């Protein structure tokens, strides 16, 4: 969640990240502290301005004295914490996660409208994924072009739920949600009705702008033409929060 506009007095903690000392407010998450201090942590579902989902698992970090890994986006900092963000084990896990995302659905980058503007594609390059070592699932996923302005391609969806959260938390429409389990899991509009028939969609396009891949795009775009802009999000998130605080 975005930090409150008027910060109440919060305790300050000190912790080490990759061997360096940092101080942070006790109500911050590890990923927030890392982003503030320009420590790169890969993530796909986390987005500043939206609630935490902790679904993509790319931001997993190691903690000294703990055998299990922690999602940096959903773990609060604590006094004396010793965090490692870039170890051989983490790099291996991140590579595997990205490979599994590519194997699960049909992400054909070369013919995607989001080619070269895609967070998944960039993540593959950053994590050192130059091929997918597991077999592709080769499942056929549907494309919903019923909306007059936007298009949904399930083939390119990684189920990060940014669309669900931005629609609910920022636009207040809650058109999007998630249906089904495992490999049947998919994002839906209203009660799994075609997007173009949605009663709740305001057509604001926030879901399209925050979508990290070519799953949600503008109609009429050709390969590589879909450039997204999510600068509105932190600004709107702060204003919403400030409004909420004054009304209380």
């Amino acid at each position, binding site marked *: 969640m975005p930090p409150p506009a008027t910060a109440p007095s919060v305790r300050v903690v000190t912790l080490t990240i990759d061997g360096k000392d940092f101080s942070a407010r006790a109500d911050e998450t590890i990923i927030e502290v890392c982003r503030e201090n320009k420590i790169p942590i890969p993530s796909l579902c986390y987005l500043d301005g939206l609630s935490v989902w902790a679904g993509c698992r790319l931001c997993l970090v190691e903690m000294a004295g703990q055998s299990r890994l922690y999602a940096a986006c959903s773990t609060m900092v604590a006094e004396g914490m010793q965090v490692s963000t870039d170890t051989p084990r983490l790099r291996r896990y991140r590579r595997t996660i990205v490979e599994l995302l590519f194997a699960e659905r049909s992400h054909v980058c*070369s013919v995607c409208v989001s080619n070269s503007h895609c967070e998944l594609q*960039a993540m*593959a390059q950053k994590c050192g994924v130059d091929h997918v070592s597991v077999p592709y699932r*080769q499942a056929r996923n549907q494309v919903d072009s019923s909306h007059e302005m936007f298009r949904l391609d399930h083939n390119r969806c990684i189920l990060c739920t940014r669309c669900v959260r931005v629609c609910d938390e920022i636009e207040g429409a809650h058109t999007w949600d998630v249906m089904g389990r495992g490999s049947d899991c998919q994002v839906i509009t209203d009660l799994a009705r075609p997007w173009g028939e949605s009663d709740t969609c305001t057509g604001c396009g926030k879901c399209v702008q925050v979508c990290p891949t070519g799953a949600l795009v503008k109609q009429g775009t050709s390969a590589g033409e879909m450039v997204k802009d999510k600068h509105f999000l932190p600004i709107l998130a702060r204003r919403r929060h400030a409004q909420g605080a004054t009304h209380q």
Partner: protein
Amino acid sequence: MTDNPVSATPVSDKKITVATAWLDGCSGCHMSFLDMDERLVDLAQKLDIVYSPLVDTKVLPDQVDVGILEGSISNEADLHHAQEFRKHCKLLISLGDCAVTGNVPAMRNPFKLEAVLNRAFRETVDLQPQIPTVGLPALFRQVRPIHGCVEVDVFVPGCPPHADAIFYVLSELLEGRTPDPNKVTRFGA
């Protein structure tokens, strides 16, 4: 990315021999190879292309230092080619997204092969619709990337990989280093 270091350095101080083949792809990767332009002249001092759509040789030599495959494996001839390359090449490179991921050729995979053939040769044809069979290798039901059939040492994604990326990979190999193609190219690049 392989964990083992790979090297194309030949045992003798002869030129490095390179073979290339074009499987189920559009030849764009070979065009990109040619796009190295004047750098090809320098490369030709250090390597010999002994088998390729770009040269006349019709037979793959017994021992080749570097094999470069463009395209995915979609039919029996593709598989045969890939196996021959693996057998005769010390180092095998998957060049381009079709070889590395399956890419566009693999987009038929979610459909039945019969449906794909009917769509291409019957439903959309006005005159004498028929499915060609004579002298053609049988299509596989599933299109696979090269490493889905034979072991691959170096992956160079891109559609096509930029000439600079191909030059980087070949230069690193000539210097006896393991190239890291992620520095210069990516899926869809």
